[in-house]
């Protein structure tokens, strides 16, 4: 148990070190720009997984909160007369709160349904918001909005955005970890396994689901705001993008639905790959073919995702390595270990 903990602590320390040192080692602006987009998607996939991965309700409309965060930041920065620079980053949490507030009524409606109906309703919300953003006056219609652009050097620009997003990522993953080990997180997992029985055990399912839904929308809104500020412009079709919904879901699925590290790994691989392809071969959508192929491969070969399958493999190695050695001394116990492992 303690060995497992120290391995985990080591992995977390390495992760934070890599996160902090990356722009110092790779200073090429193209690389740091790819890293920035990757971080944005790591936050979004983690936050999405906190709700969908735990509760089993697959939401395909989190672009609503991404877009609302993006528009909230652009609108507030422009109307409140924020000067371009560090000050605008103060609006990132505000963007998160706006997204969270919008998640309350949309979540209330969507969560009345289950399974496929729930998925369809979330998709419908995404298109409603996209259409609204294209047609309303205050969102600038199809020409979108331009938040102020800070006059930093290219390197400083990317690095500043990178570190702000890294902080949001650390906060999001910490939140996801806290939720996972909490009573609230346990109740979400119970809902995933058998919602009716959870109700019979006193779990107030409606309230739990809505809380998780809103909680998962907030970080997505925050990175939406960062995204708008980073690009310096925001259009309806990029803010409310169906591909965004599919991407974050795919990232979590590939890495391992419901695990902490899964969506991080999935986002790291998929988003970096996509950005690399875009840089190498222009803004074609060829990466979608890769996405599809990867998804198929994961579903066929590792249906539970990379992280759980890897864990299982390691567990099996351990048992195999320990079983023959301990057998002569404690035949009973070694037999037990093998038996439980076999059942698993």
């Amino acid at each position: 148990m303690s060995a497992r903990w120290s391995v985990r602590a080591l992995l977390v320390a390495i992760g934070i070190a890599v996160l902090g040192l990356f722009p110092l080692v790779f200073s090429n602006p193209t690389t740091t720009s790819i890293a920035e987009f990757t971080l944005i998607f790591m936050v979004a996939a983690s936050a999405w997984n906190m709700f969908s991965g735990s509760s089993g309700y697959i939401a395909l409309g989190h672009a609503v909160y991404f877009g609302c965060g993006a528009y909230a930041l652009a609108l507030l920065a422009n109307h409140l007369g924020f000067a371009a620079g560090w000050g605008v980053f103060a609006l990132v949490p505000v963007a998160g709160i706006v997204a969270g507030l919008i998640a309350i009524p949309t979540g209330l409606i969507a969560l009345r349904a289950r399974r496929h109906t729930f998925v369809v309703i979330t998709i419908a919300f995404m298109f409603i918001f996209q259409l609204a953003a294209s047609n309303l006056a205050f969102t600038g219609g199809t020409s979108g909005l331009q938040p102020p652009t800070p006059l930093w050097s290219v390197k400083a620009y990317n690095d500043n955005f990178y570190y702000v997003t890294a902080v949001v990522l650390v906060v999001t993953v910490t939140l996801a970890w806290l939720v996972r080990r909490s009573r609230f997180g346990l109740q979400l997992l119970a809902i995933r396994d058998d919602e009716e029985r959870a109700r019979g055990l006193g779990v107030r399912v409606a309230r739990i689901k809505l809380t998780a839904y809103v909680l998962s929308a907030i970080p997505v809104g925050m990175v939406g705001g960062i995204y708008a500020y980073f690009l310096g412009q925001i259009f309806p079709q990029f803010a409310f993008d169906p591909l965004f919904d599919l991407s974050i879901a795919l990232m979590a699925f590939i890495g391992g639905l419901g695990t902490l590290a899964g969506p991080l790994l999935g986002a790291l691989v998929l988003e970096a790959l996509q950005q690399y392809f875009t840089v190498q071969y222009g803004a074609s959508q060829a990466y979608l073919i890769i996405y599809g192929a990867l998804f198929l491969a994961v579903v066929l070969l590792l249906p539970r995702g990379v992280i759980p399958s890897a864990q299982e493999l390691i567990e099996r190695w351990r048992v195999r390595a320990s079983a023959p050695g301990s057998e002569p001394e404690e035949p009973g116990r070694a037999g037990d270990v093998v038996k439980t492992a076999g059942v698993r």
Partner: protein
Amino acid sequence: MSALIEATGVCKSFGGLQALSDCSLSVTEGQIAGLIGPNGSGKTTLFNVMTGYERCNQGEIRLRGEPISRATPERVFALGVGRTFQITRLFFRLTVLENMLVATQRHEGWIRSAVRRAGSVAERGRALELLEFVGLDRLAHSPAGILSYGQRKLLELASLLVADPEVLLLDEPTAGVNPTLINQLTERIRELNRAGKTFLVVEHNMEFVMGLCQQVTVLHQGRTLVTGTPEEVRANPAVLDAYLGGADDDDL
């Protein structure tokens, strides 16, 4: 001798099917009551109505005299009525211990519940104690999905006990369970009853019902046919008719 939980004049129909019509039942505090009846006589529907899973069309469910007919399942449980299901339901991907912790009834704010660890030391200790009580403590950290059918029934019962409900409604606790485990289950129910818990048990296993229950109610086609001690029920000709067919057939 006041009724702890009672159903009076309950009617429930699903479309054209009248599942319960004017069905009444009353369980006294500290009793082990049995509910029997042929297949399709409405036993499980009555359970569903009593625990908030279904709304009755007419009639009333009362707990200690307070109406609970409109309460949600989560509310009914919080008021002290726990139930198990005919087809055992567990959280199969959670561990046995985690299954036990779901029902801990801790009252705290949203943020606190989202941040604090699932199961305090005391709650985990109590959960392990209850697992020992049903003989599953050795499997505490295994996924619930690996349990055998009988073990699942025991875990389902134990996971209710975490919240310390006053009344336990058990839907066919012995179906598909081997005789040794049935004996163990009977022992556990008796022990809990001595500690003050009230039971209402739906069963097809007559030996189990007649041996365990102090009062038996027979349902037939959605109606309460008779209520009485096991001996009275066994001797009642209407019950024999319900189980073995109409009186006319007896001549054949």
